[in-house]
């Protein structure tokens, strides 16, 4: 009857079943109840704004050398102190934050793209391809992550793309597994059957129909992935293998500060950049936790 | 008069949940003498399991709360008693058989160990005696080759056997009261009958008092001396078993009886009780069963019916209790 007319197609083409949309509302409501997660979100917003606008507002050049003010502890003029060249640390920290967050964001994005591709392919196609891809995932899980990242960055040079790619190299597997699991279960659902009987092609089904629902668990994983990416990049820069001066990330500033902190007692050189990493990661973790509870109400409280 | 073995008065238990407080048990009272058998009957959500757990002090707090009432065992108050005292009672004087045999036994320990731990804890016997007693118990509940199976883990037994083991565990220290919380619900019908027979047999032999909790009124007929029917956390009717079957005085009880299939007699339609049980805050200004009741009148929605006598040792919480009692019933008195 009506299923043969043109009018029926748009209904099947609707990307989200109605149930999923009201779940989003529910989830948002539950998220709002998590004070810590909201706090974390707030911190992240403030941080992002500070990092983007701070240096502009403060009007100080991060590279401005001022030997007259060298090696000063925190003060009103320089809330985060200065280094041996007299550069204001607050501005440097803010500018460094830009690069850190940019790398983290890009790395997570890349990681998700790869993970979704592999996971969707494996989950939807099934069979031999699925098996092969999952073996690949196993291999990657067994690789000594940090070592290989160090290797890649050392061999290929410490550029933005290399570092982002290296981090993504080690974090895509989790997304792939989640997406694959979603695809495995979702492709058996009725609305997919319905779309198929109407004649919607496989690729379209995989993308328009299943993907939006498969992405839900990825949200939590991606959020927490930001924290991981920040930590990896910072570790890399701390080891001296990340971005080279004058481009600095928080990890890089920590690296530069080692001598000053340990041998000269200029604790502020290490304290503030590290504190920024800590606060950001903590906030991201709170948000991720809140998201996880909000999106999966079946989990036991605490 | 001597002190009853177990006396529950006005027990009220609630839970704190995300959506507000849930009043699982609002008001229930009953007594149990030595060797007596009581059935607590009700739908899921009626509060019967929580009542049983409260007697043993096994309701997790938080989120559970004792809102009121008292539970006296041989005159000693159990509610609010220190854990130390409760531990002496649990397993030794009052023991419980739980609903789900699949999850109520520790999968990581052998049943010999699980039985043995309880026996040696309460009875302080020597190792050999403990093992002997364990074998004795397992044989008693009908586990073949008990001696050889002491070293087996729960997953090596069938559901019915696990339930028997749970019964053995409960009986291990000769308790005065055995509380059986829907012990047959998770099992299939043939096994159900076996378990019921087993408990009947054990009761004859060992003479302990029994509280049998079930949603199936049909099960209690040959098993217990008296019945308490629960609805929405309240006791809505209490009577000796024959009396209950012969002269039910609460519409809910009537409904339960009507929904039982009977062997023999005239063919009739099974009539379930429409609607679903209440949840959440109790409404003390109306009868909780009113929305589903065939006999409802205006008074039911304005005034809470108290549990009042309609006969000898027979109480019902219904404004029209006398009428309901006198109405002709379809079900004959239980054999």
């Amino acid at each position, binding site marked *: 009857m009506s299923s043969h007319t043109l009018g029926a197609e748009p209904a099947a083409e609707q990307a989200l079943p109605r149930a999923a949309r009201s779940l989003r509302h529910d989830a948002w409501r539950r998220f709002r109840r998590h004070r810590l997660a909201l706090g974390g979100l707030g911190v992240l917003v403030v941080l992002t704004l500070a990092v983007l606008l701070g240096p502009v507002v403060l009007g100080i050049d991060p590279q401005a050398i001022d030997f007259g003010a060298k090696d000063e502890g925190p003060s009103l003029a320089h809330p985060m102190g200065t280094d041996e060249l007299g550069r204001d640390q607050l501005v440097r920290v803010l500018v460094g934050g830009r690069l850190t967050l940019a790398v983290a964001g890009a790395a997570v994005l890349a990681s998700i793209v790869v993970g979704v591709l592999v996971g969707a392919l494996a989950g939807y196609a099934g069979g031999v391809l699925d098996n092969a891809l999952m073996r690949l995932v196993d291999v990657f899980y067994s690789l000594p992550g940090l*070592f290989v990242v160090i290797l890649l960055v050392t061999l290929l040079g410490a550029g933005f793309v290399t570092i982002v790619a290296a981090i993504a190299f080690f974090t895509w597997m989790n997304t792939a597994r989640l997406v694959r699991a979603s695809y495995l279960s979702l492709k058996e659902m009725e609305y997919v059957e319905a779309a198929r009987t109407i004649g919607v092609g496989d690729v379209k089904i995989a993308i328009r129909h299943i993907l939006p629902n498969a992405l839900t668990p990825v949200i939590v994983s991606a959020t927490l992935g930001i924290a991981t990416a920040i930590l990896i990049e910072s*570790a890399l820069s701390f080891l001296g293998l990340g971005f080279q001066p004058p481009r600095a990330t928080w990890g890089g500033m920590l690296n530069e500060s080692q001598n000053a*902190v*340990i041998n000269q007692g200029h604790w502020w050189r290490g304290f503030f950049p590290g504190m920024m990493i800590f606060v950001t990661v903590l906030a991201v973790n709170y948000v991720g936790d809140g998201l996880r509870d909000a999106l999966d109400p079946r989990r036991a409280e605490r | 008069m001597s002190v009853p073995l177990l006396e529950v008065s006005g027990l009220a238990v609630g839970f704190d949940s995300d959506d507000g407080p849930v009043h699982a048990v609002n008001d229930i009272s009953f007594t149990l003498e030595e060797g007596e058998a009581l059935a607590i009957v009700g739908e899921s959500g009626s509060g019967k399991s929580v009542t049983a757990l409260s007697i043993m002090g096994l309701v997790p707090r938080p989120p559970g709360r004792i809102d009121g009432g008292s539970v006296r065992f041989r005159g000693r108050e159990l509610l609010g008693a220190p854990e130390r005292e409760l531990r002496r*009672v649990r397993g030794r004087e009052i023991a419980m058989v739980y609903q789900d045999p699949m999850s109520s036994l520790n*999968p990581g320990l052998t049943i010999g160990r699980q039985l043995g731990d309880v026996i040696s804890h309460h009875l302080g016997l020597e190792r050999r005696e403990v093992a002997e007693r364990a074998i004795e118990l397992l044989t008693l509940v009908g586990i073949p080759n008990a001696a050889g199976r002491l070293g087996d883990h729960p997953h090596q037994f069938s559901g019915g056997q696990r339930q028997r083991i749970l019964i053995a565990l409960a009986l291990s220290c000769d308790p005065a009261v055995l509380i059986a919380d829907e012990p047959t619900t998770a099992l299939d019908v043939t096994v159900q009958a076996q378990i019921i027979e087993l408990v009947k047999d054990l009761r004859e032999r060992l003479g302990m008092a029994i509280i049998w909790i079930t949603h199936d009124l049909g099960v209690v007929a040959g098993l217990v001396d008296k019945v308490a029917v629960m609805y929405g956390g309240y006791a809505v009717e209490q009577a000796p078993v024959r009396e209950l079957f012969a002269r039910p005085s609460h519409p809910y009880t009537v409904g339960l009886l009507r929904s039982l299939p009977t062997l023999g007699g005239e063919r009739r339609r099974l009539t379930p009780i429409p609607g679903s049980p209440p949840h959440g805050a109790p409404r003390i200004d109306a009868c909780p069963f009113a929305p589903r009741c065939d006999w409802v009148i205006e008074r039911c929605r304005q005034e809470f019916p108290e549990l009042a006598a309609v006969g000898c040792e027979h109480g019902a919480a219904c404004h029209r209790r006398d009428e309901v009692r006198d109405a002709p019933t379809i079900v004959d008195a239980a054999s």
Partner: protein
Amino acid sequence: MGTYVIRRSLQAIPLLIGISIVIFLLLQMTPGGPLASSEGGGGRATAERTERLRAQYGLDDPLPVQYLNWAGGIVTGDWGTSFNTGRPVLEAIADRLPTTLLLTGLAFGVSLLIALPIGILAATRQYSVFDYVSSGLSFVGVATPSFWFGLMLLFLFSFELGWLPSSGLEDLREQHVGLAAVWDRMSHLIMPVAVLALISTAQLTRYVRGAMLDVLHQDYVRTARGSGLSERTVVVRHAFRNAAIPVVTVAVLMIPELFLGAVITESIFAIPGMGRLFIESADLRDYPVLLGILIIAALLVVMANLLADVLYGLLDPRITYE
């Protein structure tokens, strides 16, 4: 059971082969291949020398041949020689491995010692102050960058207070004996181990607490309580015994993480371990050493996974093996 172990070990072999291929390929990724950079060879590499080295290491052979040569060598015990020092790779690694293993082992032990009691206590006293505080601390601990933690510790205890030495494994200025020697060793290890163990301890505490909570809500724990057993028996014999199963497997899987994390610790505290060797070799493009270290690390990961599986099977009586 024995057959299961053998079967799983055999399954690990294709995995190891796959890993070795990926690792091998990774190293080919330098623009121009090995020895291309002028740093390669650990000195001034003239064109002739490069040619000679290329021939010596068979770098002009097709890739699959190179791979097979190398892989064959690994299996037979010939891990090649360092481009940099000319010493056998195995020797170079054997020099540094014990140090890293020591650090890793100590950190693992510390993690267990702290995480187990705190996690169990937090679970049995859920909703108490102790629970909130310990859960909060472990949440915070997971977010702390270990290098920042190390740096701050160094500032406080080395510079400011002067209680602990800032680098190395032992005092290079004088030889200590007896108790002084013991304290010397220990004082050099306290901070590095603390830094390395920070995150794993926090993670493990959260996990132990979670596992215990799961178990404590199980029906059989209620049965145990309902039988009148003492709280200690219930918690230890019934709850923890079952919670220990997943906890042990997770703990074992942490060992490779600790091993890798040692890179940072060794860097901060100037400890001569595998991590430092890796960084140094990467800088010098010392391929044989790099490959060797990567293989060891991968072996560790695979073995840890195997161990975790086997332990799980041993501890959970529900699992039977043909």
